[in-house]
């Protein structure tokens, strides 16, 4: 069973790694990279939301922080993009820890925690939109300078592999977490905080570790986004869209599982692309699809796609 999980992760990595050989059209490869970046953001959310049981509506705060730091540090201060990316990830983890400290220490849970995270992300968006260092409403451009040491690659395929490597790394990390003491304690806090405390679990510390780790991974997605599209503004970096993307995929695909975010983001984005190709580019059609998927999946227990497949297969 455990080895099967590892085999599935490596199998997914191997199959996905072949994509750039078969998909050569720029738009489709763009779509694939974009989906993988969102998948990474969702994997971050899955740590805090899926395993830790703390539903954040503001993961944009972490996505945007790394995205902006990656972009601004290199374009304004001439720092190496890889270093900027690493600093950005550390900063996202720190932002996560602070938001977590402020909200968990005052005992915020459930919808209250969700609202506070949403508010933080919105504040970040407004500030980023108004300040000079982020380029304000005009946004920030990363200068096109295609060199591997500059974190820019001549082919989209290479970037696809880089993002894929991060996604697989996040899967392996999630798998390791699942089997660790911290993972067990996170799940215990999710299932029953008082019972966990009685068993010696420091609930606050566990939640802070969860949010910092979660923020770092979603932050990494933001940094990759900046590095791939080379342009950012406040609505992209700190917009509600990314918070929604980050939580929708794990919920649809199975929150608190290694594969949930991957399954969820691939299914959601394939469906919305498919619909777009069917009915044309009606604005907001992808959100309609997301909404329908969410209703369908949540309506029928066990409330996620892998669960539904298991149920159909067992013939109930």
């Amino acid at each position, binding site marked *: 069973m455990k080895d099967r999980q590892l085999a599935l992760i490596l199998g997914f990595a191997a199959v996905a790694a072949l994509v750039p050989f078969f998909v050569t059209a720029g738009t489709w490869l763009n779509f694939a990279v974009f989906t993988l970046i969102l998948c990474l953001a969702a994997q971050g959310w899955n740590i805090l939301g899926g395993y830790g049981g703390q539903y954040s509506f503001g993961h944009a705060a972490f996505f945007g922080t790394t995205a902006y730091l990656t972009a601004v540090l290199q374009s304004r201060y001439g720092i190496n993009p890889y270093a900027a990316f690493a600093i950005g990830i550390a900063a996202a983890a720190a932002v996560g820890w602070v938001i977590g400290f402020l909200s968990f220490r005052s005992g915020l849970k459930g919808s209250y925690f969700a609202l506070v995270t949403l508010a933080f992300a919105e504040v970040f968006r407004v500030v980023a939109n108004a300040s000079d260092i982020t380029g304000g409403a005009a946004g920030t451009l990363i200068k096109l300078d295609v060199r591997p040491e500059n974190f820019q690659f001549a082919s989209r395929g290479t970037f696809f592999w880089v993002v894929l490597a991060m996604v697989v790394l996040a899967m392996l990390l999630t798998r390791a977490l699942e089997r660790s*003491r911290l993972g*067990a304690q996170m799940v*215990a806090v999710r299932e*029953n905080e008082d*019972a*966990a405390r*009685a*068993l*010696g679990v420091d609930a606050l510390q566990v939640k802070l570790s969860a949010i910092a780790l979660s923020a770092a991974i979603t932050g990494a997605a933001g940094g990759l986004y900046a590095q791939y599209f080379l342009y950012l503004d406040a609505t992209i970096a700190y917009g509600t869209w990314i918070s929604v993307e980050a939580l929708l995929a794990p919920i649809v695909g199975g929150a608190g599982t290694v594969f949930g975010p991957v399954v969820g983001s691939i299914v959601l984005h394939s469906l919305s692309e498919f619909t777009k190709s069917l009915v044309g580019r009606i604005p907001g059609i992808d959100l309609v699809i997301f909404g329908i998927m969410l209703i369908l999946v949540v309506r029928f227990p066990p409330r996620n796609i892998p669960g539904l497949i298991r149920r159909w297969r067992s013939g109930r």
Partner: protein
Amino acid sequence: MIEADPAFLAVRNVSMRFGGLLAVSDASFFVKEGSITGLIGPNGAGKTTLFAIVSGFQKPTSGHVLWKGEEITARPPHLLARAGIARTFQIVQPFAGLSVRENIAVGAFLRHAKRDDAIALAEKVAERVGLTAELDKPAAALTVAGRKRVELAKALATEPKLLLLDEVLAGLNPSEVRDIVPVVRAIRDSGVTVLMIEHVMQAVMNLCEAVHVLAQGRIIASGTPAEVVATPAVVEAYLGHGAATRLSGQRDA
């Protein structure tokens, strides 16, 4: 009065007030190391509140809890668990989505960072409380008796020195009670001191060496089970004012 060892667990003049309600009033008692001590009393006497105070879930309005002479009043539960005080809950609190093995492992992880060690300990504890056959089942799928055992096993897996049992026998049928009584005794024999809240008097008489009776927030009697049930104040607390005299009058007649 029983000989008490103030060095182990001492509750001193603890009071707990919720608004206008004085749930625990100036309660003092000792738990002797290596004993099974009972805390009994009618419904609403304040037993569970007193437990919540001893296990760090509530801060008393006044008074002190001492553990081996050290002040532990209002210390958070996770630190008390680390120090060696574990508790179960009257209303069982399983991690519903997890298997029995994973439930117990959460407790075992307290002193064993490695997963393999924690799982091994969890399985050993499961054997002690008779859950070996249920290890792979989801905790939510168990019967009431099974869940009580999980509750017990989770607490035991933290390898405590003092185990606080909040009505582990409540809701069980007589044969289930008979099954679990030896389990509790075996826990004590393995060196864990037990303080139990219990309503099932047959089990209290059977298990406890010392009993403290709480009524309306006060400790009204302490002693061996036999001494305590013979105390008029205890009979009156359960059966109403004057009951002791009426009962003794019937016996005499």
